């Protein structure tokens, strides 16, 4: 099983919103859905590098704030006519805390 790191309280992330985690692998967006699921993905749209953490979260998808590409939060894949994918990371909640894949701690050389 992947080692996980305790990041923050679930309530620090707004419902249907996201917060950013800085990592040696770049910024990671940590999303919380209306039903309190959490997902983590690279905070960078493959189209023009838009910050996905600032997109509108609907269902288990997010719409990029720059040009409206839609991504599935779990798979990272672009939806509809657009093609491309964002790297995703394991994330989960337990006891009101949010945990994130510890490989994100890896040194820059590993990236």
């Amino acid at each position, binding site marked *: 099983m992947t080692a996980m*790191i305790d*990041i*923050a309280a679930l309530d*620090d*992330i*707004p*419902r*249907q*919103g996201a*917060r*950013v*985690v*800085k*990592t*040696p692998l770049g*910024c990671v967006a*940590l999303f919380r*859905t*209306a*039903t*309190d*699921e959490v997902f983590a993905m690279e905070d960078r749209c493959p189209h*023009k*590098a*838009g*910050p996905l953490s*600032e*997109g*509108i*979260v*609907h*269902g*288990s998808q997010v*719409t990029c*704030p*720059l040009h*409206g590409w*839609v991504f*599935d*939060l*779990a*798979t990272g894949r672009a939806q509809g006519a657009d093609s491309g994918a964002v790297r995703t990371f394991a994330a989960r909640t*337990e*006891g009101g805390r949010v945990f994130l894949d510890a490989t*994100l*701690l*890896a*040194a820059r050389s590993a990236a």
Partner: protein
Amino acid sequence: MTERLVVVGAGMASGRMLEHVFEASPGAFEVTLFNAEPRGNYNRLMLSPVLSGEKTYAQIVTHDEAWYRAQGVTCRFGERVLSIDTDAKTVTGERGSLPYDKLVIATGSDPFMIPLPGRDLQGVIAYRDLEDTERMIALGARPGARAVVIGGGLLGLEAAAGMQARGVEVTVVHLMGHLMERQLDPSAGYLLQKALEARGIRVLCKAVSQEIVGEDGHVTALRLEDGTDLLCDLLVMAVGIRPATALARAAGLAVNRGVVVDDRMATSAADVFALGECVEHEGALFGLVAPLYDQAKVLADTLAGRPAAFVNREVATKLKVTGCDLFSAGDFAEAPGREDIVFRDPGRGIYKRLVLDGDRLVGAVLYGDTADGAWFHGLIKDRTDVSAMRDTLIFGPAFQGGAPADPLAAVAALPPEAEICGCNGVCKGRIVQAIEGGATTVDLIRATTKASASCGTCTGLVEQVMALTLGDGFTANANPPMCRCTEHTHEDVRRLIKSMGLKSIPAVMQELGWTTAGGCASCRPALNYYLLADWPDDYRDDRQSRFVNERNHANIQKDGTYSVVPRMWGGVTTPAELRAIADAADRYNVPMVKVTGGQRIDLLGVRKEDLPSIWSDLNAAGMVSGAAYAKGLRTVKTCVGSEFCRFGTQDSTGLGIRLEKLLWGSWTPAKVKLGVSGCPRNCAEATCKDVGVVCVESGYQIGVAGAAGMDVKETELLLTVPTEAEAMEVIAAFIQLYRENARYLHRIHKWVAKVGLDWCRDQVADPANRRALYERFLHSQTVYQADPWAELARRPQDWAPIADLTLRAAE
């Protein structure tokens, strides 16, 4: 040989366990039962019916004295257990110690009390035991009594409904956006809130409690973060429970959030077991009764030396409030590969949502009609393959096995006298007649028969009747639906929000039959705008339904930085403001400072985490947000006018400033830009603005519907008025007309092209109507004319990264 079994805690779990023990191993144990409450086992779940008066305490007692006597249980009720010695195998109570061979810890849970100032006042209680229940019952005997319940979960709502049934005036304060957010999705939460409000319970969601206010040591009110005081004689906190683990922890047992037990219900100490709300099993805690009963069975087997293992299974929730039919089971979170089936019947207040994961049903939320709850729960528990009945699954077991339904065939089968439009009592035959008489569009059907002209929810049916009657001659509504979540157009949604009094996003989605559970990035911002424009007093802005610029009150740039533009009233500034802007640009290393086309200064390239501090700095110099990001008032461009210019006919600068001070802060369907020129030379380029004023000797020419963006268009004259005061009133009234009627993202020129300039002129030329529009605008401004920067800058932590792992990695 008889073993000595000591049980600490007489709750529902331990009571059920003792039943199993005496049944399975009669005579095997000599039992001593401790309970801190001065009574034995009763059904705690049934406290709500006791509170509402549907049951008495005597009726909910599960084990009476006769039962304990018959089983030879030594009862030590009203006595606390002080300590456990797992080496010596003894338990010490307030009235002495005794040895055990086997020990069961069933200490249950404690209510969580929010650490608000004033929580120690008299009249602040939890909802946990008979004493709390009796306090609430006693309150009902006092005429005019008021209560506040903090917590809109299962327990809080049962407390509220129970007190309300006894005549208490009850307000429920809930931190989250909708009631029972753990069990319900927003749509079902909305219906529940509506039902509770209909019976007289006041419900405040997204309400943050700040302080409990008291007088002479007794509670008098709950104060909310926004300053509201909710007066009350009793305050009930029902925000959750925590496992009661102090005793186990002191005894040195392994305790995380709860007392850790394995599948056999054994703790980390030999011969010590635990069950109920105090335990933690594989990371899970327990608050509902079904798993506790499973634990009771497992522990009874373990004590009897039989192999048994506890498995945490799916549980269903039902709310015990008479008249609120509500059921929730399984997991209804969004996840990849999961699909929703949503059924809504707005007329009957029914909402059903099934969550499928591949071929299995994994979750169900039912509101209004819960008859099929048990059947769905069975499908979830048994992991039944539902692929064969998927099309009709949501209609329940009665509909399985038949032919798949074709909606068009169903309409074709209706007799001519079948009612299509319930609001206006129009039957299918009347509609067919109208179509044959030449009404070939939905609008014509509305005009000739009134069908679908009121609430509009039958529009789909009307279209199906048209498709059947006209065959290939029918083309569906040319005005496309708002988005793929609904069949309604923007215009229909706006009309229905007003006519049906819909005041929240879940309300709109339910009553208008949205086909998705939570909307999409296209409909949510539109709905948020429509609701805040129509219901300034009732609706609270939903930040998460806004595009990034409006959510962050700054314009996002291509590299993810932001631009910050302070308001510069009428394009006029001062040396002090310029200095403050220059200082801010220096302090935050702003890469570009640019003068905008709207006569103000843009600071480009500000990092998100610097936004709160740059805003505070600009606020401190007296500047507010220029809303350069908003679907709202942007700028009022002016020329210098009669104050300085030799051609100026009126004080165009002053009028521009006064207009900007009147209009700033208002949200509109799309951005709004104004211009005021002091003479027909038009240096402020007022004739290509959304609203442009050209001053002349005799007064003010107010033009509207100009454009200088993707479309370029000159304004058209709305009205000419003699005084500045009239000009201000006409403009505000016109903006309000636009706010109330236009479709989201339509600029004024697009909207005017649709509704016609003559209609707009009629609306604002009529003095009474103009005044009413103007007053509605002013009223909305009392809510929305506030500087967002001042508010948002108070929480700088929300703008920074939530964590920085680069620092941890370096360690």
